[in-house]
């Protein structure tokens, strides 16, 4: 079984007592307890300001357990990308920000679209999944 593990540590001193949360999960195929995600896509792109772009070119199998990681590696904190899923704005990743979400790609419109603002944004992404519809040559 392929094994993909994702861990997060979150710390904050905004509260009177410091908060620290750690979590780790093994990324399994949808509905299974013994079979891990076994395919992945990993890339790095530079996106000019104003350009809207589908971060994942191929559509993974819908309603599965895909996990998507995106980081904005821009070093200018004023640069950001807007993340949109199926025409629904999700939020913005400024320079240095990352996100990690389950992404079920529930229909053909559910691509993850990003739009760059401020300048050329440098984006790293990784998709862990269990199958995709490849584009015929």
């Amino acid at each position, binding site marked *: 079984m*392929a*094994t*993909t*593990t*994702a*861990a*997060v*540590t*979150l*710390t*904050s*001193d*905004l*509260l009177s007592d410091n*908060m620290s*949360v750690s979590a*780790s*999960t*093994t*990324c*399994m195929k*949808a*509905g*299974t*307890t013994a079979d891990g*995600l*076994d*395919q*992945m896509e*990993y890339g790095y792109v530079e996106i000019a300001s104003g350009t809207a772009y589908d971060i994942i070119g191929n559509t993974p199998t819908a*309603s599965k*357990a*895909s*996990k*998507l*990681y995106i*980081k904005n590696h821009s070093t200018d*904190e*004023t640069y*950001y990308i807007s993340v949109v*899923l199926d025409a*629904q*704005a*999700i*939020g*913005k*990743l*400024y320079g*240095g*920000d*990352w*996100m*990690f*979400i*389950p*992404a*079920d790609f*529930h229909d053909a419109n*559910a691509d993850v679209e990003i739009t760059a603002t401020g300048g050329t944004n440098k984006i790293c992404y990784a998709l*862990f999944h269990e199958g995709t519809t490849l584009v015929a040559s």
Partner: protein
Amino acid sequence: MATTATISISSDIAPGFSGISESMTLTQAGTLIDIDSTTGFAIRKLAATGAVDLVTMANELVEPKDSVAAKIYIRNIGYRGTIDKSVGVTIGVNAEPIGKLYGGDWMVMPLTCIDADDITVNPDTADTVVIEYVLFYEEA
């Protein structure tokens, strides 16, 4: 004051993939100033199918500023120590399904915090499951 989030991903799917290890300091939009507001850590117990709000933006005690640098952490922690990785809870924004958190799965996602963009949770089954979450945002 600082809030940081560090992610580590390891995988043996692709030969040569050396993993991902990244950290971010949560800051206010377009600045290096630390983000300064949070809902605090909370849990929500679910025991029925059907989408309900985890966060209702218009009902927050302190109004979050819209379309800036808010982030949310959400995790499916199962129930009373039992984590079932075969069933999940679909997380949505303004009724748009984002994806499903199976038992133990977690996510960190930016948010618009616009009033319409509530965060919804919808369990696969009526079995009791607990969702933990914390929202970091800027005050309006």
